[in-house]
């Protein structure tokens, strides 16, 4: 490989990652200055407007479509200062990317027992990924979530349970969906295996009382307390400052939203059909209201229970993948949510081992998206009514492709031995 020299030392890879982001930042700065088409993400203007409202002593929710915790606006408070400070948020998100990449590298080194160059190669899926660098340098906050969630994974694997609890609380406060990780982390923190490497005890012989006592081990209690306290403390502070609009915009909106605008979700057409007045068929049971059932069952219950003890990072990938795939709303920024777990999963995955499977999955995923985007373009820009059959079929196909990939991820995770540090060495490709 021509690039293999790159992966010899962390300094090279991380320098490249930093340079990549600097180039994007500078390029974006120029595009913004000279073109009416902006490089900067629309959401970034939402955050920075919200920060400006905060700096004037107002609520960040004064800005329409600010649907995040006020913490985010506080984080990027310096963007309200004049001059180059406007880009502070993008720099922060980009630094977050790099830190997340560093933690990925550490996890791959210490928990996956990889060589430096191999760990760097897989961390580069994140670090040198132009899509990741673009998203953070355009000023989307998803990158910040990347660093929080990766830090969460790192602290759990490093058995820093107090820190993990705080990070989990913070992550849920930030974006809600990371609550699904609570299940897998709790299940994984099974005092007997992993760290000691002892075989599992035969639970069936114990009385129910003992099983409960066994389940409630100190680590789980510490995690639960720390995450709950962090989560609630943040909420109470934010609620006391910003009142009901905080709850309304950062939580309730996400829970009750019925987003009819076309997006990748399989439920999209159904939601449009059934949320409009007068078109809801009386015979229907508003099945779309139950859409959260398969989503939550898979991502927060069944996948953690079945897989967390084999391989925590892959489980979190599968959970996120299931959550996004079965969500009522799905846009391409959601794909970043699971991309941060790929460096841990891919090394000994079927997708890399079997080139045919991997290539087929990748091609189908891209085709599914392309078909949807083509139909979406017809609707959005040409004004053709492609809702049915085009857009609906495309989103169902994309859904099926994603479910197929999820099936492969689950099977791969099942194959793993229960100790993440003891995965069998894989032939280098």
């Amino acid at each position: 490989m021509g690039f293999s020299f790159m992966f010899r030392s962390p300094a090279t890879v991380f320098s490249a990652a930093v340079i990549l982001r600097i180039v994007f930042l500078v390029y974006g700065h120029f595009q913004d200055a000279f073109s009416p088409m902006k490089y900067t993400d629309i959401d970034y203007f939402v955050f920075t407007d919200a920060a400006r409202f905060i700096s004037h002593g107002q609520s960040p929710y004064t800005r329409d479509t600010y649907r995040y915790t006020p913490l985010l606006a506080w984080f990027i408070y310096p963007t309200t200062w004049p001059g180059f400070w406007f880009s502070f948020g993008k720099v922060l998100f980009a630094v977050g990317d790099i830190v997340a990449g560093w933690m990925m590298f550490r996890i791959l080194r210490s928990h996956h027992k990889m060589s430096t160059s191999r760990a760097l190669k897989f961390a580069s899926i994140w670090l040198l990924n132009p899509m990741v660098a673009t998203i953070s340098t355009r000023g989307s906050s998803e990158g910040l979530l990347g660093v929080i969630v990766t830090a969460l994974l790192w602290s759990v694997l490093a058995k820093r349970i107090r820190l993990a609890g705080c990070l989990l609380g913070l992550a849920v406060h930030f974006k809600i969906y990371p609550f699904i990780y609570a299940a897998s982390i709790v299940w994984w923190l099974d005092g007997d295996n992993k760290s000691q490497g002892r075989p599992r005890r035969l639970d069936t012989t114990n009385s129910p009382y003992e099983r409960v006592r066994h389940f409630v081990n100190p680590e789980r209690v510490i995690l639960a307390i720390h995450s709950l306290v962090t989560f609630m403390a943040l909420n109470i502070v934010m609620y006391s400052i910003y009142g009901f609009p905080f709850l309304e915009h950062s939580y309730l909106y996400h829970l009750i939203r019925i987003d009819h605008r076309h997006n990748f979700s399989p439920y999209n057409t159904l939601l449009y059909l059934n949320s409009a007045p007068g078109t809801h068929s009386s015979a229907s049971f508003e099945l779309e209201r139950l859409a959260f059932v398969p989503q939550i069952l898979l991502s927060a219950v069944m996948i953690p229970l079945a897989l967390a003890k084999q391989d925590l990072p892959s489980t979190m990938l599968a959970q996120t993948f299931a959550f996004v795939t079965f969500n009522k709303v799905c846009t391409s920024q959601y794909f970043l949510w699971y991309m941060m777990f790929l460096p841990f999963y891919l090394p000994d995955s079927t997708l890399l081992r079997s080139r045919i499977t991997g290539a087929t999955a990748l091609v189908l995923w891209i085709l599914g998206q392309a078909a949807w985007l083509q139909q979406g373009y017809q609707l959005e820009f040409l004004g053709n009514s492609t809702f049915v059959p085009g857009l609906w079929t495309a989103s169902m196909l994309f859904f099926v492709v994603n479910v197929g990939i999820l099936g492969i991820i689950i099977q791969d995770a099942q194959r793993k031995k229960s100790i993440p540090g003891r995965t069998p060495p894989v032939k280098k490709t």
Partner: protein
Amino acid sequence: MKQRITYIVRDPDAFTPEQLVVKDDFFAVEQVSAAKEHRITLGLSELPEELRKAFAQWHELHIRWASGSPYQAAAPFTSRVSPGLHVFYTPQKTAGDGRLCPLLREIFDSSLGCESPKESFIKMPILSERFSMSASSQFYAPVHTLSDLVHYIQSKLCPPSSAFCTDAAATLHSASYLDMDFDAISHALIINAFWAKAPNASAHWTENISLRGPSDTIEIGVLNNEQNPDPEDIAFAGFLTVLGQDSQPKPTRFQTPTRHYPLPSSKRLSYRTSFAHPTGLHPTLVLTLPERNISPPDSTCKLHIHLTLPRTLFIDKYQFNDALFLSSHHLKSLRSLSGATDLEAPDWVIPQWGSAALFELAVPGSASPDSRIDPGWNVTIPMHLRYLPPFPDSGHRNLEVPWPVVFWACRAEEGTKMSNNPFDRIHLGYEALFGPKTRFMHATPAPIGNGTGRLVEVIQVPVLDVGKVKWVEAGTVGVVLAAFFGLCWILGRKSYAMGVASVEEEVRERKKAQ
């Protein structure tokens, strides 16, 4: 009942006083080419009880209706509003809204989307509380004709078997615009109709006007717009007649400051509106002006566009913060945006009628008057569509968007005296967004309109075709459930197998240990 009828003669050279005939309580015009304004002032006591009761509950109500057909304005009647029905309303602090919406539906259009002022009206933006002369809320609906109003007047207001009243009401069919004003202080309803020209083939007025009742007064003016002696005034000369008092038309000459000022003929500006095709879900309105005529009539003048947008179409105000973006669209700034501006909501969850926007436009730097071909100055305003409800048997629904109004807003020295103008017209939705010392000089919509002679653009909004969705619900649920159970099976199969294996292994180990 007080009436004032004003004819503004189009061609003073072709007019002679012999075309007017006055006899006691009778007045006739013969073959006069003119624009006409007819103003009727009614005391509340002259209205039927239903209306009297309703009006008594309101603080002020101003109705502006403009025809969708292009018309040629005539000074002093140069002000314009977008075609359709505009209602400006201020409730009384203590009273309810009464039957405002039901009455509007009955009078103008039974399908009017007016549920109640609280739900359907939008708040008027007010620039300055102190100088505010604006009503507090606004409503708009695309009402194309006044035929419901004519019918209402004929059946509810006209005395039975009064052919005169019935005929007078019917003339509203051809009105270019119609105003109705009521406020609690004057306790009077003023109805003001304007015709740009006579509604017959020759476009000449031949009419007989006579007093009907003992308490009626009718004042008739036949006026000619004179060259302005004062730069801020308009001047008229002609004849005034008070029926019953004057035995012959009395010559008159007067001048007055005016809020709406005619553009000098050298700077006449006509505009066209269209939407860039394809419109998609993000239509872009294109305003086309002749580039060489866009020069400010005065150095203080700024060109503006005032848009009346039905709720399906909306503007994202956050797009208009960037100077580069604005100038690439030939815009200066978004001066005001009010009403239904939610950026995400579908059409059916928005109770208000829509929104109103005021932009200041950029003007070309140095026009090249030499070039033969005027390339046209295109101003573009990006907008967005809301999702409309699914529709049976069609993938598209038509959305009508009224043409905006375009005008120069200029500094005036004598703002306060403008209301002394007997023809002053306010409550148009935009003049309160400027200071009181502002005068307006209006551009004229192109007579060709949208191509079919109407000042309305039609956008095709893509919607879900209900006729095609038979399988969507079953298909979605079926695929999701199949996927869910498939994943359950993958998860369960292996876990069960591993569970059994690990149990067996442990049992084996225990046996070994024993």
